[in-house]
């Protein structure tokens, strides 16, 4: 079963808002840990490593192509540990 990329969320706006709201009041390292915890919880729920690997691959391809939105001028410098 491949990664399902068709629209499946019943309330996308609410989900998006909830993800953003979850980070409120957190500094960058904590924010990062929060995302990591969410990813790990969901990955375990999915259970199938191949699906998670495919998601990683898809997202990584976007990062490699630099098609993610650029950082705002005030944003902190990107973490060197993340550079390809």
């Amino acid at each position, binding site marked *: 079963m491949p990664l399902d990329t068709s629209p499946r969320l019943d309330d996308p706006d609410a989900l998006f808002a909830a993800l953003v709201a979850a980070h409120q009041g957190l500094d960058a*390292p904590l924010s*990062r*840990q*929060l*995302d*990591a*915890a969410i*990813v*790990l*919880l969901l990955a*375990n729920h999915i259970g199938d490593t191949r699906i998670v690997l495919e998601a990683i691959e898809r997202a990584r391809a976007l990062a490699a192509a630099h098609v993610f939105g650029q950082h705002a001028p005030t944003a902190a410098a990107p*973490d*060197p*540990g*993340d550079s390809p």
Partner: protein
Amino acid sequence: MRHQSPRYAYRRPRDMDGAATRHPVVIVGGGLVGLTLALDLEQRGVHCVLLDDGDTVSIGSRAICFAKRTLEIYGRLGLGERMLGKGVTWNTGKVFFQDRQLFAFDLLAEPGHEYPACINLQQYYAEEWLVEACREAGVDLRWRNRLVGVESCPDHAALDVETPDGRYRITVDWLLACDGARSFVRESLGLRFEGKVFHDHFLIADVVMQADFPTERWFWFDPPFHPNQSVLLHKQPDDLWRIDFQLGPDADPETERRPERVVPRIRAMLGEAVPFELEWVSVYTFCCRRLERFVHGRVIFAGDAAHQVSPFGARGGNGGVQDADNLAWKLAAVVHDEAPVALLASYDAERIPAAEENILNSTRSTDFITPKSEAARAYRNAALTLAEQFGFARPLINSGRLSRPALLANSPLNPPHAARWDGSLAPGSPAIDAPVERDGQPDWLLRHIGGARFTLVCFGQDDAFSRGRLDLAPLSVSLVVIAAGAAPAPPGGVLLVDRSGLAARRYGALPGSCLLLRPDQHAVGWFRRFDAGAIRAAMRYALGAQPTTLAESA
């Protein structure tokens, strides 16, 4: 009570007087792996000369975790009981994060095996007992004999050796390089030794103290007494405790090994009230790397000389001992003309994947313990935090994955056409222990498998087994018959009673089936019924004489 390092006397080598002789096997390096290899070979009737530039055993405890498979190998060599008797058996590990315990884990040691999942024992004890056993077996142990030159030729190697009496030169059929991570032999042959270098420094301290900590492995991530780093506590015999502090990439090794730096770190951990004494301190970094191949003509590498791992998972010493276990019977078969030289290629084919597995596991452990980026740290800390509440996250916590035996599933020595059925022990796997009875006395199955010859284990009271109609004559095998109850011993073989049924179950045996095992106790393959022709063909295949005729005779 405390260990005293023995001093082994230098003796003027006989090669220095009179005509130099050609030796069948010379081993360089009298550490854990070299000594194990020497003992195994000598027990197989291959005379060994062992060169070591020192005159004692390892300084400091070094490799302390002897995993089950290693203990079984030493059981075969006659040292297992002694190690088990002295070693500290532990089953429980605890993981701490910052100021709290996250969870405890059990090594899930299954009962009904002679050896536990792991014992802790200082490397110097193992080496000292190996030296004694090597001496008794007849190994030519040459202390203060430093190898200073190697010339590798198509059918031999020429060695220059330096001693307190000067230099001598010897010619050897086989040179076994067990001379450690900084192998002189490897350097001399100019072989590439590449892989991943880790920059974190670690402080290792052997501490003598009468502490009432339980016999458990404790691992801290980011503890209050050593913030942002990891710490490991492990018990050894003689009231000795191994403490390992991660120091980070910027630590200065010279400064950090001084007692005035080490003692406060330990005090912070143990509290002011616990009296202790430092026995050994070392600061190290490590690499995960290997030689591209371990067999180079007449020069064969084993242990750290061939591959290096991080200490997490105890895969250095245990991996090296498995190298020796794998190589000794093959080299003995070649030296005794029972197998073609091509058999030695299987040492590469079997031990390179094993080294890769060890490197992969120890690299992953190291990366978990020492995160290299903010993202890695975030994932690591998220997993740790989740692990406290959620069982699913505990398997993510990697503070070292204990050395497991190599399964050799893709070995070129596994006959492709051997019989298999669901649940049967896979070809290449090491034999599994089980409690049995012999002549009414409790015994262990593994004590009767491997060693000098291949072993044929026959399950069940098949007519052929009990009536002595096994035509073993063309097979040079040890015969073991496993019966559910008392039965006559097979002619020329051993009868083991499997009262609990554990042996048959663990092997997934069918009544009347037979399993052929190599001298290193790894499985060759199954036979649905005793069939001398098929067994002989499989044995020849496992001795490197391909192609097999097993398909037609099975």
